């Protein structure tokens, strides 16, 4: 546990020292938030049924939160370390190798809390209201950050499998289809049949739906429960795969 804390603290220090690595990850979510609202807010006025009286910003905010937290930053940091040799330095130390992964993931949690808070505040500034109140806002930030942690497992997995910087960098691209084959612009029932089918089998949809329910509807235990289950499932599967790859590294 000490090892995870030590390595996590180091990774957090990295975030503070390289703000230029974190700030650009905020650009895309804030840009999409502003542009999407600007383009469709007349099409979907607050009288639109699925907006429950709010502006379109409330509907888009979860999508931006996902963009803010889903990064390949940890994977990139890890692959850089594999490249420069520090990774071997850690592997030769008498620590649990899993702590190298958990150290990284703990910094994803910290970074996720930071970036999702910024995006959430931006959404509030643009007029969104959190129906579930302050506690709901805290839960939104937490769930978004945990989604970021789960997603980071994917970058880490690619880093460990390929040991290649370019591959790890482009692993982030996988997120685009996952994020857009969702009810990101309109609810499920407004999608074309094909898109609806794809969106319904995409687990990321339920994370968006869960976060959105906290903003637009208030507390909906069912939607939040599914959201938590998806995040936990993703996290467990990706982390387990990373741990297995780590255990078999250079066998």
């Amino acid at each position: 546990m000490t090892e995870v804390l030590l390595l996590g603290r180091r990774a957090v220090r990295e975030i503070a020292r390289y703000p230029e690595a974190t700030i650009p990850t905020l650009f895309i979510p804030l840009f999409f938030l502003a542009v999407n609202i600007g383009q469709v807010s007349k099409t979907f006025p607050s009288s639109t049924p699925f907006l429950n009286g709010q502006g379109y910003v409330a509907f888009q905010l979860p999508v931006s939160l996902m963009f803010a937290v889903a990064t390949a930053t940890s994977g990139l940091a890890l692959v850089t370390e594999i490249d420069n040799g520090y990774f071997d330095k850690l592997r030769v130390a008498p620590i649990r190798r899993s702590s190298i992964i958990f150290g990284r993931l703990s910094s994803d949690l910290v970074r996720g809390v930071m970036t999702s808070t910024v995006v959430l505040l931006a959404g509030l500034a643009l007029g969104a209201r959190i129906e579930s109140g302050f506690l709901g806002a805290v839960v939104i930030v937490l769930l978004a950050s945990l989604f970021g942690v789960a997603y980071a497992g994917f970058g880490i997995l690619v880093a460990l499998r390929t040991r290649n910087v370019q591959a790890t960098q482009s692993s982030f691209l996988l997120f685009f289809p996952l994020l857009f084959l969702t009810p990101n612009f309109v609810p499920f029932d407004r999608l074309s049949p094909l898109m609806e089918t794809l969106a319904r089998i995409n687990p990321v949809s339920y994370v968006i739906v869960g976060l959105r329910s906290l903003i637009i509807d208030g507390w909906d235990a069912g939607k939040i429960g599914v959201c938590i289950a998806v995040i936990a499932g993703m996290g467990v599967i990706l982390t387990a795969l990373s741990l297995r790859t780590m255990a078999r590294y250079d066998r």
Partner: protein
Amino acid sequence: MERSVLDPDSFAPARAGDDAVIEARALTRTFKGGIEAVRGIDLEVSPDEVFGFLGPNGAGKTTTVRMLCTLLPPTSGTAKVAGFDVAQSPDAVRHRIGVALQEIGLDPAQTGRELLELQCGLYGITGRRARTRAEELLELVGLTEAADRRTKTYSGGMKRRLDLASALVHEPVVLFLDEPTTGLDPASRLTVWEEVRRINEAGTTVFLTTQYLEEADKLCDRLAIIDDGQIVTQGTPQELKATMGHDVVSVSLDGADPTSAEAAMQGLPGLERIVAEPDALAVYVENGAGSIAEIVRRLERDQIPIGAISVSRPSLDDVFLQATGRRLEGQEQGAEATQEGDKR
């Protein structure tokens, strides 16, 4: 070096007796695709020795070190380090070894001090003890002034020294150094040599790999020459050089055929051995200065043109040439560009 932070007695089991600190038997590593990087290595390193692994790039030095350091499991064969089997008890080995690999493993975002304190933490040294230990080590490698700068601002020599210090936080029984001076300027190289000697005098066994003859000669108590995944010869530098003979007369042939030059030397008084190279001949004799005249006379007799001629004591390069048919010298500069070959 003061042993104030860790109790050296905690390593007592591994140090007991005169048992070898490193012991490898038929150690082999074959990579995917059937590349045999290490092909059955046997070696023993005694406590308090500086043991050198001399060889060209791609000879299997790094692969051997990675196996001994528990980073890479052997395909077959066994190795014990500090009394523990590297494959059976890797964690026990890791507690007792310090490692500075060829690629200097530093985190550029941290300062030298932070890096050493984190390294302490990974070995269970925390709090004030970690701070004291980091301070001591910074002083040991002369980085006290640069301690609070991020390592990315360090020069190559400073990085190497910090890496060395980070391998020492837990006072290891064995220190592994993979090409500790490759890429360093001559002055930094000397500094690293001094550090290694000091560390060794403080009681740490050192296992280092090098492609530099001078480094092997000056720094190592004993060495093994490795080529193409196998140890071709081992001993103290003096022993190895003595096996070659007393003096070596090096004749560079001006385009002439070495075979005919070799034939011309048959029956030379005091001849110990002849090693032919593509464009040169190394003639090992009892008395070099006294044999020059006769050597020149014989070459002239057979109308073999001479480019240059010199007398010297046999060097490790002569040993290397005898064992492998190639010289190591001269490969050194060009070799740095092709380091990739030795990484795996």
